[in-house]
């Protein structure tokens, strides 16, 4: 069994993957190829995908996904006025905007550290965020970005990338778990403690990989200057990883003896001793024949943009039988590596596809008779856009877009823009970390923060259009929060609501309802 698995692994490193996408002429864009694969998958299983979403829906969706907030009012108005939207141009513009770099920098930093970017506990979170934001802005090739993170050295407040190593204490065990999970999509960390009979990954794989980090040392300055806090990572010229030898007899104190583990990568013989160890690891990670690095990145980006991964994990890659999702993963991963690990190109390819631009609503299709089973099938075949709750950051930035901020003294947007050190996590402190919880709902319901936003929205409308609730007020509020113009029905509905009380209170009630609505707090 064990030998067979090892053999299978070596094989899949050599021939990138078994279920390769069918060859397509270069003239057909990868986006179109995605759509063809999805169309074939839907046809095979008798699923009717929804048609494309409206321009207004697309504008809101892509702004939230790429820039982390709802679109500005001017763009919403232009679409509402009926001037056609050049979707490709919107995507191009967003990808080169500073907001894209900030939003994806934040996403990356949370993903890599499992924490908010404000942490300074043993590492410099804000500095890591700054490093990642800059890498996204410069569209640094992903393979290079990964090698920067693994090869980091020096001081935490100077060298941003070293904070990834520091987040995991610069220790071989935690780093190996993090690298395998976050860069390769593999659950190697289960093998840290034990061999599982059915798992491909063995303890030898885990510790052999871990030995590449054996010479790292985290150092803390003995007497840092007042108010200063930093850490240093160095690589020593010698030293080997020693782990407990559970098979050996305990010594007289009852402690298990240790044994030396030499660096060795899964499926390969012992690593070249003359090279720097982490450099050997990076070379293995980023060689084009390693199927995991690119596929895991594609899988993660796809999940960010479409709400669900293509495959659950890569532990059993390549899969035994071909599938639509596996074909999509290979298609995108091959294009990604053959275009120098270009993250912006990957995102662009996905969001200009019909698959990303699918509607999420049945009503627009004219047939309401879709039952829940068909809906599920449409979702699992990418034939319908998924409705996803907004993060605290997306909510905060969208409210700021609509009304400005009332937390001036710690303006989150300002702090992000200037890369200043964060002292407070305004979005999460005020809105709660997790969507769909009672805590988040209570914040939206009546927190100081949301009451402040409601006041700002009502005041802005009064300043522009006077105190009596009319069509203009409702139009503006719906456009700035929901990024679309209201229907005739809705104009009436909200004017009725606003007309019941004194005008200021009425406007506040309208803002409150819009701000709490499912339509506002989700991306759809």
């Amino acid at each position, binding site marked *: 069994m064990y030998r067979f698995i090892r053999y299978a692994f070596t094989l899949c490193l050599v021939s990138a993957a078994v279920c390769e996408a069918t060859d397509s002429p270069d003239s057909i864009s990868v986006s179109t190829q995605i759509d063809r694969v999805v169309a074939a998958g839907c046809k095979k299983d008798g699923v009717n995908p929804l048609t494309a979403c409206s321009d207004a829906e697309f504008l809101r969706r892509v702004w939230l996904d790429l820039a982390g907030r709802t679109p500005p009012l001017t763009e919403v108005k232009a679409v509402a006025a009926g001037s056609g939207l050049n979707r490709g141009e919107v995507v191009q513009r967003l990808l080169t905007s500073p907001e894209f770099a900030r939003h994806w920098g934040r996403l990356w930093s949370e993903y890599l550290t499992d924490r908010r970017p404000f942490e300074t506990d043993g590492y410099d979170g804000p500095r890591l965020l700054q490093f990642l934001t800059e890498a996204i802005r410069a569209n640094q090739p992903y393979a290079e970005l990964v090698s920067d993170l693994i090869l980091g050295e020096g001081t935490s407040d100077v060298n941003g990338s070293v904070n990834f190593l520091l987040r995991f204490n610069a220790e071989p065990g935690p780093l190996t778990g993090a690298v395998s999970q976050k860069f390769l999509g593999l659950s190697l960390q289960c093998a840290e403690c034990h061999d599982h009979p059915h798992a491909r990954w063995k303890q030898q794989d885990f510790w052999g990989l871990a030995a590449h980090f054996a010479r790292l040392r985290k150092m803390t300055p003995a007497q840092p200057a007042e108010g200063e806090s930093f850490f240093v990572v160095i690589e020593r010229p010698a030293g080997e990883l020693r782990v407990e030898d559970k098979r050996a007899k305990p010594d007289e104190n009852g402690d298990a003896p240790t044994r030396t583990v030499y660096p060795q990568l899964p499926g390969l013989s012992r690593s070249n001793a003359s090279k720097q160890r982490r450099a050997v690891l990076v070379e293995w990670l980023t060689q084009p024949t390693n199927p995991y690095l690119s596929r895991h990145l594609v899988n993660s980006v796809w999940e960010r943009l479409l709400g669900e991964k293509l495959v659950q994990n890569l532990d059993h890659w390549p899969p035994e039988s071909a599938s639509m999702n596996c074909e999509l993963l290979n298609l995108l991963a091959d294009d990604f590596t053959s275009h120098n690990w270009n993250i912006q190109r990957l995102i662009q390819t996905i969001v200009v596809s019909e698959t990303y631009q699918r509607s999420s609503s049945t009503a627009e299709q004219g047939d309401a008779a879709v039952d829940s089973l068909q809906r599920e099938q449409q979702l699992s075949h990418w034939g319908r856009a998924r*409705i996803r709750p907004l993060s605290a950051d997306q909510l905060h930035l969208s409210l700021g877009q609509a009304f400005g901020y009332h937390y001036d003294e710690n303006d989150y947007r300002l702090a992000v823009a200037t890369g200043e050190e964060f002292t407070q996590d305004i979005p999460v402190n005020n809105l709660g970390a997790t*969507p769909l919880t009672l805590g988040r709902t209570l914040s939206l*319901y009546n927190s100081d923060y949301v009451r402040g936003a409601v006041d700002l929205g009502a005041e802005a409308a009064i300043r522009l259009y006077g105190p009596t609730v009319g069509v203009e007020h409702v139009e503006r509020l719906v456009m700035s929060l929901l990024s679309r113009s209201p229907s005739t029905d809705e104009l009436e509905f909200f004017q009725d609501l606003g007309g019941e009380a004194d005008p200021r209170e009425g406007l506040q009630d309208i803002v409150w309802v819009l701000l709490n609505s*499912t339509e506002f707090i989700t991306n759809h």
Partner: protein
Amino acid sequence: MSISRRSFLQATSLGGLSYFGSSIWSSLFAAQSEMSKAKSCILIFLEGGPSQIDTFDPKPGAATAGSFEAIDTKLAGVKFAQHVPRLAELADKLAIVRSLTSMEGDHDRAQNLIHTGYRPNPRLQYPSLGSTVAWRQSDPEIDVPAFVSIGRKFETSILGPQFGPFVIEDIGNPAPSLTLPEGFSEARMKRRLTALEGFNGRFDKQYHSLLGNDLTQLTRRADRMRNCPVFQPYDPAAEEPELFERYGSGVNDGYMARACLSARRLVEAGVKFVEIQYGGWDTHDDNFNQVQNLSASLDAGMSTLIEDLQERGLLQQTLVVCVGEFGRTPKINGDNGRDHFPDVFSALLAGGGINVGQVLGESSEDGSEIKHRPVSIPDFHATLFTAMGLDISKDYFAPDGRLLKLTESGRPITELLAS
């Protein structure tokens, strides 16, 4: 694997159960009457890994004893360390487990294990005790949330965020968003909610979204929480000054007094599971001074909690649990501290569903290993679930359709369960 087999063999050799074979388990649980089940649970979580030798499993005379003395408890022949005198007085209302054993020696992993009963899996966040109880036993008609955490945050589990805790950060004002501003009428809030449901109704219809329904439920829940006095600002120093003092308002920063008193009020209001986070037990250095301080708050808070529940007739239906993620080494290190020790540690149980007035399990003379009746974390979970009337033999399905057993390998410790 080896643990549960060994514990089973030990139980059979001592308890005379071998005659019945293993099928006896299920019939024994069925025999436990509904009356003796707990309806709610308060978990006092001693984060950091408390030193069992310096609290509930002292080793007087051993080289590892440390600087504390051992004192008598209400139970003949059973001793506690000197800084938990009030709990010692209440020992007849406690089941003292001295043979818990964990498989994890790292804080994060061990905390995950003690909360979920499953070894940490990077891809699957199993539900913590409170989430499982909320999932199986919450009553949609009750206005209070089923699971409330005082000060501890949790990862979202595979059950989904709706079964996660409502987290209280400021005990004095547990849900600041519930207080409507001055001059804001009930009628106005009602108007807003009606309009919101009307507006969301259009969206749900157009988008066929299940998410919309979840969100509407959450908003209704949030609104109903305003009917619950227990989530209004509360100052025990003004409302119940004497009781608050008994809880230990003047001991250390008074946190445990506020937390334990709040837990009693929450359970009284119908919350099914309250977890109190009480950190600071990671005493790698200066162990003895630190444990002395920590013990003072725990002793006052937990003992008063048990008395208070009893005085209100709630103890019979409330399971009280006190445990950390692991114990600490018998060996005292160079910094006068003790280090992580998952091999042997202690827990206290009290109240509903529990056979109290006993010590279960035993550690060796110097505390370095288990001498008798090891209790694995899954066994511990199986015991708590059974005490709360949950059927651990059943297969359940998580909201995402995944098969989920309450415990994979745990067997309830029958001696700990009330009959």
